[in-house]
């Protein structure tokens, strides 16, 4: 039986970082505008929504689950918070909390179906993807919510830091990553997440309430989607019912590129941040080079396959 200590193969951690370094080197050599503090802070701004969704996604994938509904739940959250403020006249902090509450409820629903009804996460979240999409469209009447209070867009504002404009949302994203990294590594609750993903039966036998851990993970993921909703509103300045449609898979891509194993139990959450940044760097660098966005999709696909291959090989090597 594997122990908790051999859950972190070094190659799985280094892979995404190597890809990032190579991509940066190529773009740095081919365009003179790539290497600047301003450009890097811009890329971080561009990935903050998918980056925070990927935190929730990482937690779920660590338990050997998957969440296909994350982007749609995020979109619903942003519609709820902007409409509650614009239409119902709720004060901004309360409206934001309502939005996060709704996304947490969707997380709870996913979690209950997975733990109590014992449905596979893939199917549950596929269903929830459709449900959240439809509710978003119906509630918003497919109209963008433009009348957004300034407090909701504050995280999209920037401050100067050594020649670059850094968004407050970027700082929040990085803090959330560091916080969750610490939580997963250093607290009992965090290690239970790894244990459940590694071997749920053994985990249950040593007395850890696996169902409660799983349920907690789905609810917590929902909270992160809610924070991502706020970041999406902050970044675009509106509640957009068409947001989130590519974020579902983009978040999974970030997690997989970041070296977290789809089989559960292994991975480092900071890798997901690097995974998200890799995708952002590709998009930014290829635009600077004047290359069509199709190549970004192509390269991302190749990197995903590589990342999963590395994971699979390192699992075999570890046994």
């Amino acid at each position, binding site marked *: 039986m594997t122990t908790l200590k051999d859950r972190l193969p070094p190659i799985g951690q280094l892979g995404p970082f190597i890809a990032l370094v190579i991509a940066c080197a190529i773009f740095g050599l081919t*365009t003179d*505008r790539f290497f600047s503090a*301003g*450009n890097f802070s*811009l890329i971080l*701004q*561009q990935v903050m*929504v998918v980056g925070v969704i990927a935190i929730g996604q990482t937690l779920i994938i660590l338990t050997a689950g998957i969440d296909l509904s994350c982007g749609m739940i995020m979109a619903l959250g942003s519609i709820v918070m902007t409409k509650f403020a614009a239409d119902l006249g709720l004060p901004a902090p309360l409206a934001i909390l309502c939005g996060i509450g709704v996304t947490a409820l969707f997380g709870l629903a996913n979690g209950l179906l997975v733990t109590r009804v014992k449905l596979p996460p893939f199917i549950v979240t596929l269903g929830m993807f459709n449900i959240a999409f439809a509710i978003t*469209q119906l509630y918003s*009447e*497919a*109209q*963008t919510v*433009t009348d957004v209070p300034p407090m909701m867009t504050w995280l*999209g504002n*920037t401050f100067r830091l050594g020649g670059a*404009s850094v968004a407050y949302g970027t700082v929040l994203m990085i803090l959330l990553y560091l916080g969750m990294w610490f939580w997963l590594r250093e607290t009992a609750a965090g290690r239970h997440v790894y244990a459940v993903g590694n071997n749920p039966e053994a985990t249950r036998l040593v007395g850890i309430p696996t169902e409660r851990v799983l349920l907690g993970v789905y609810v917590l993921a929902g909270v992160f989607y809610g924070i991502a909703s706020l970041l*999406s509103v902050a*970044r*675009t*300045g*509106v509640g*957009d*019912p*068409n*947001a989130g*449609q590519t974020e579902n898979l983009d978040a999974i891509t970030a997690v997989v590129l970041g070296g977290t194993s789809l089989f559960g139990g292994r991975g480092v959450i900071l890798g997901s941040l690097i995974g998200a940044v890799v995708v952002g760097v590709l*998009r*930014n660098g290829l*635009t*600077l080079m*004047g290359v*069509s*966005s*199709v190549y970004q999709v192509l390269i991302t696909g190749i990197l995903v396959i590589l990342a999963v291959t590395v994971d699979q090989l390192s699992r075999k090597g570890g046994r």
Partner: protein
Amino acid sequence: MKLKTPLALTAFAALIGAAGLAAAADAPVIGLITKTETNPFFVKMKEGAAAAAKAKGAKLLSGAGKADGDNAGQVTAMENMIAAGAKTILITPSDSKAIIPAIKKAQEKGVMVIALDSPTDPADATDALFATDNYKAGVLIGQYAKAAMGGKPAKIATLDLFPGHPVGAQRHNGFLQGFGLQSFEAKNNELAAPAEVVCMADSFGDRAKGQTAMENCLQKNPEINLVYTINEPAAAGAFNALQKAGKDKAVMIVSVDGGCDGVKDVASGKIAATSQQYPLKMASMGVDAGVEYAKSGKKVSGYTDTGVTLIAAKAVAGVASKDTKVGTELCWGKK
């Protein structure tokens, strides 16, 4: 109403059934298939078709794909409508080529198929096409931008749709043509890239992606002073990026669509000018043609331009445009 006995219930049902049958026998059935159910453009199109069908005593069935690009969903909708007795199908093809075999099958059964908004490829696969001239829509905003720039050298960013889409190419190339730059003709699906275009990026017609694309373009060339966008959501995203970079006053944005949100952005100065198109008209013309076909058996054919109007807050000399008041009256979406 509460019905007390099963007998009354049966009688009631029979009555409704008979009435329904009588109506179905008289009224021509027309099917409308849009790309999606939710996009305000198609919602407006459906409204227009429903109003025209009511006025002419036709029965309208409507359906759509699940998302933009869902060809199979459109084929299923078409089969179901023909099974329900539709003799005319109005369709906005999601996939201009893949839909053609299904259209051929429908035509073999004597169904008239009219493309709305987007042509099939080749365009003569449908009996007729009622659509905006997207190339002309591009030309109009190109001419406007040229006049409004007043001889200043242009550094242009284009936020396009996605690779390979004819509408994306027509608007892009039309814009460059109207601006007086080297460009391609309307039938070419490639995007022209003269030297004045310093950045080309795909926005997918989406606000958030348009914002990201604009930010990256500003990194590539901070001196951009003119932005063409495929539609108004992309334009709103571009404006957001420009505003954050402190460049919203110095850069002009032109766009295409004429949705109510877009016209609002023209009125507030975010977008300088937009080419407005008319989904309601496409749909009502389609229904009229369907009713005529049911009555006389006469089919419509060829391409009908449903018109495009340049909407601008500030008119420029030498380019005809309408103000945002006119634009608001004719816009689609929520006013």
